[in-house]
């Protein structure tokens, strides 16, 4: 009796599979139903409305703005995390005194809740009392206080900077994994051949790291695309929706404006987009496994 349970993989998998499938499939079914029906703000369904909700989202100028900003947001953070993360990982891969301390510090943002990070930055960026202004003025970078989060021109770039900072640990982790898989002989051989640092980087490190960079790009794209707390806890998409990205816009549609039909339609579209990213990731991961 005992034996049959332990040896039957389906019995072992069932509880985990059912729980995970339930939490995805049920909400997805709900979303699909609401998205294709007329619905009032209390969530009561009226008649079938086909693609009306989808069309109303696409025609909303706020949607287009949020879509564009999501593109900038994702590109800038993923790009920034790769461009900064790669050299940092290469430094952390070298042997120097205090390396483990440096690693802990660089990885630290990952352990802190994004909400707390964002709230602390919100306070640090405060125009009159914020410590960033006073710090920068003391160093001589600024003459007058900057209202960082109260104007669109500075709010979004600052949020992107915070985004890069909290995305770095994950990118660096993947790169460190990649760097440790490159055999030392290769570097030594290259040095014997007289290659300089830049040549070694371009001809050895970069090509061998490429699969890891691909994975970091795709996974970070998925995470950053979905990232909600940084923007919500600093500006809630303001001032005047100028920092809304798709996830904050979605949240407002659903829980502030009570436009449940539109919100569900948007969820479905974002779900489809995420699925596409995931398929790309699975392809990349499988290719990595085969080689």
């Amino acid at each position, binding site marked *: 009796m005992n*034996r049959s349970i332990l*040896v039957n*993989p*389906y019995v*072992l998998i069932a*509880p*985990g*599979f059912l729980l995970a*499938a339930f*939490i*995805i499939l049920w*909400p*997805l079914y*709900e979303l699909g139903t*609401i998205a294709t029906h007329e619905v009032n703000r209390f969530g009561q369904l009226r008649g079938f409305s086909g693609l009306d909700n989808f069309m109303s989202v696409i025609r909303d100028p706020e949607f287009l703005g949020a879509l564009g900003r999501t593109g900038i947001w994702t590109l800038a953070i993923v790009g920034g995390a790769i461009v900064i993360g790669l050299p*940092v990982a290469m*430094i952390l891969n*070298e042997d120097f*005194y*205090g390396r483990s301390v*440096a690693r802990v*510090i*660089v*990885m*630290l943002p*990952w*352990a*802190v*809740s*994004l*909400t*707390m*990070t964002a*709230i602390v930055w*919100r*306070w640090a960026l405060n125009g*009159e*009392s*914020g410590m*960033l202004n*006073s710090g920068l003025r003391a160093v001589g970078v600024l003459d007058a206080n900057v209202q960082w989060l109260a104007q669109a021109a500075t709010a979004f770039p600052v949020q992107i900077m915070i985004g890069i*900072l909290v995305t770095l640990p994950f990118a660096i982790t*993947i790169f460190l994994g990649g760097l440790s898989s490159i055999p030392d002989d290769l570097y030594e051989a290259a040095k014997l051949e007289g290659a300089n640092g830049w040549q070694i980087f371009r001809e050895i490190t970069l090509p061998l790291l490429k699969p890891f960079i691909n*994975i970091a790009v795709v996974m970070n794209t998925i*995470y950053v695309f*979905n990232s*909600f*707390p940084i923007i919500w806890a600093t500006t809630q998409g303001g001032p005047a929706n100028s920092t809304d990205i798709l*996830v904050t816009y*979605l949240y407002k549609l*659903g*829980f502030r404006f009570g436009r*449940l039909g539109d*919100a*569900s339609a948007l*969820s479905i579209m974002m779900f489809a987009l*995420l699925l596409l990213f*995931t398929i790309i*990731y699975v392809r990349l*991961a499988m290719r990595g496994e085969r080689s």
Partner: protein
Amino acid sequence: MKLTRKWKRTIVSWALLSPLIVLVLFPFAVMFFTAVKPPGEVLQPTWWPSEFVWSNFVTMWDATNFGRALWNSVYVAFLSTAIALVVSIPAAYAMSRFRFAGQGFFRQFLLVSQMLSPIVLVIGLFRLVVWLGLLDNVNSVVFVYAAFAVAFSVWMLQSYFSTIPKDLEEAAWIEGASPWQALVTVFLPLALPAMTVTALFAFINAWNEFVIALTMLRSQDSYTLPIQVFSLVAGRYTVEWHHVMAAAFVATLPVALVFAWLQRYLVRGLALGAVK
């Protein structure tokens, strides 16, 4: 000679890393120095307080309803981690020890659901929780966190389990142990580190989660720490920043310390979960 070269590398490395390190430590410094300022000085943008008011941490406790939120966070994080592990360990064991029809499908399913963020499902999840009658109940959050933790837990555990040789269990069977005995006496002790790392991941994720808690929890009594601290800031005209920063500091410190302590193992786990 060798020593001096390493010292040179040390200086260059730290110099290159210093801008990033300043940026990473900046929020911690802001949190700490604001938290210990006398209340009258909080709005003055100076770094160093005229005196260190440690009692801010005591007044914060009551003023921010911290105890209740701390208890909710501990409850949610522990329970959701426990549930996720109880269902994930057998599944990961099956994935690493058996070949069966549908295994490829299950792998794909795990990968896809690992990628899914709760935010795109949040409206459907909200309706599910309402339907279950669990709105504004911490158990709703426990349930959702546990379910979303299953995918990466199984994924991470199976990549560890696959590194534990099957021969060890088989040797125990040959010596007359039942599969259960082999599992408990041979496999589980070897798998314990993997389970600990996975549990820590699930715990930290649950401890830090924002959007699900923001949606499902509607009153002070059920708020977890991130939502409680957020509620002290959002939509208020006057914010008691020294209390907010003290609360954020106390909420952040334990997890950050555990992370710093176990960083090597956690980072290896993160890499395994992501790349393999």
